């Protein structure tokens, strides 16, 4: 069982461990999004998020078990997100998950949320095998990671300010879209006309793999304030903004592939659901000769399935968590222990 409660989604999934094709072992997954709860406040209120996880987690556990036709006694292990994330929210899933494992006498494992995102593409048919480069673009992170094996992660690039998803959300807010505006901004971009606006591609004019997205929103704000503020203009600006982000990510991915010599690019995290990003990266892959791997859109954003997967891999490698319910609100991805040979067929 995988449990996710690091931020504003409660997720539970059940996975039967099949190392060669992990996605085929996915038996059930259930998700509850708190977006509507937080919308009234204009952003995630940590205390309210924690309170909602407590109400929703067990009903989701029951739902997932019913969907899979299983009882708790069928579980062989319990994985939960142990960090990074909101400490109170993390503690809900960790305590319930650790206690379930204790009661059942099965191993438990605390999963790194970003490792969950990073491994999510393994849930698809024809899963990528390390080594690869991963682009992790979510609400809280923009990372380029060299993945030599499970747990062997080297951060190649990071954001100096806003994460890519955060840039989408904040820019949407500037143009009057309700929280969380990222997906809505992306939808609007689909109706925007090309070439009406153009925004810079930050930090692409110098070497390096770091990102900086906070300046973009200022550019958008200026353009929006000077404009006629019509619906069409909003869509045109959204399109130009999305192009700037996608283009920037693409340039950095190409650099990262070149620097590492990797032939596979894995994209994950909420922004990985973005259509233009998926299309542009796939096209670049055909051109340059690298393969791209995406999770299905539902597994780009937070979910229990990726936590079940990352947990299963680590349990298979013999790692587990003692009886202490540990959470790590801040947790360095590159500090994780390696889990060699956890996946069959790893090169």
């Amino acid at each position: 069982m995988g449990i996710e409660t690091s931020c504003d989604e409660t997720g539970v999934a059940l996975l039967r461990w099949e190392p060669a094709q992990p996605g085929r072992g996915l038996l059930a997954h259930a998700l509850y999004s708190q977006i509507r709860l937080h919308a009234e406040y204009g952003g995630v209120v940590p205390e309210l998020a924690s309170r909602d996880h407590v109400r929703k987690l067990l009903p989701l556990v029951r739902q997932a078990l019913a969907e899979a036709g299983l009882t708790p006694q069928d579980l062989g292990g319990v994985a939960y997100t142990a960090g990074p994330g909101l400490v109170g929210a993390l503690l809900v899933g960790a305590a319930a998950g650790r206690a379930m494992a204790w009661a059942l006498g099965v191993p438990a494992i605390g999963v790194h949320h970003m490792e969950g995102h990073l491994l999510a593409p393994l849930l698809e048919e024809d899963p990528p095998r390390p080594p690869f480069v991963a682009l992790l673009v979510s609400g809280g992170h923009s990372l380029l990671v060299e993945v030599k094996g499970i747990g062997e992660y080297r951060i190649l690039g990071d954001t100096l300010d806003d994460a890519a998803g955060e840039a989408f959300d904040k820019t949407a807010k500037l143009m009057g879209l309700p929280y969380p505006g990222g997906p809505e901004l992306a939808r609007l971009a689909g109706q925007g006309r090309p070439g009406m606006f153009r925004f810079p591609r930050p930090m692409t004019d110098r070497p390096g793999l770091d990102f900086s997205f906070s300046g973009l929103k200022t550019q958008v704000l200026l353009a929006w304030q000077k404009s006629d503020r019509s619906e069409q203009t909003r869509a045109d600006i959204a399109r130009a903004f999305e192009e700037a982000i996608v283009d920037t990510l693409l340039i950095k991915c190409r650099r990262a592939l070149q620097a590492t010599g990797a032939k596979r690019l894995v994209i994950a995290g909420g922004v990985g659901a973005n259509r233009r990003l998926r299309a542009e990266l796939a096209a670049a892959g055909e051109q340059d000769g690298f393969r791209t791997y995406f999770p299905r859109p539902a597994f780009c954003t937070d979910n229990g399935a990726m936590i079940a997967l990352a947990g299963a891999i680590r349990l298979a490698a013999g790692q587990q968590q003692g009886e202490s319910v540990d959470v790590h609100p801040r947790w360095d991805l590159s500090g994780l222990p390696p889990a060699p040979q956890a996946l069959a067929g790893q090169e």
Partner: protein
Amino acid sequence: MNLLAIETATEACSVALVHGDDVIARSELAPRRHAELVLPMADALLAEAGISRHALDAIAVGRGPGAFTGVRLGISLAQGMALALDLPVITVSSLAALALEAPWTESDELGQGDEAAVLAVIDARMGEIYAASYRRSGAGELLALDAERVTAAETLQLSAASGWHVVGSGWATYAEPIQARLTGPLRSADGARYPQARHVAVLAAAEFRAGHVLAPELALPVYLRDKVALTLVEQGRA
């Protein structure tokens, strides 16, 4: 009956086991270490009683009020255990458990003429306390005199009583204003008392016998302080 009780709503972390007529417990004053201590304490108690977790009949938990994170930790642990073992949960007020920490004499019992009451007070931060008052109606039985609430000590409202025992961290912080609100002489006061799992266990055992149990997903915290953020509309007004 075998019942495991957890109480983590305040600075004290404790676990208790009702095993037949015995109540055994582990307790530690360990702020910020609760998450680490509960399961090992539960193991130690089961080992001491010589029973397995599969012999448990129910899980009990102090459901607050108290520190939000501590309350949720206890509830989430109880929920997870109970779901996995297919057991019911009994939630107990952490203020009621705290009230059982007060020193009781025969004359404090109902019907003895000179009836002292107990005021349980937990420091709620932000200048407030969680408070409730009780009388004892028999061994380990409590009669609530008023509703649990979060309030400034200065505006605490209490019913009439011929004397008061005050327990809990609220006294440590607000002794003077609380004393000014008492409706009778102070019989005893102890600001270094915390809700304990052994009292949660005793109160829960009675509920269990009376059939007052919950499905694990319905075992939920009681925070009392429910306004924790301003909506966009309220922010605009402010």
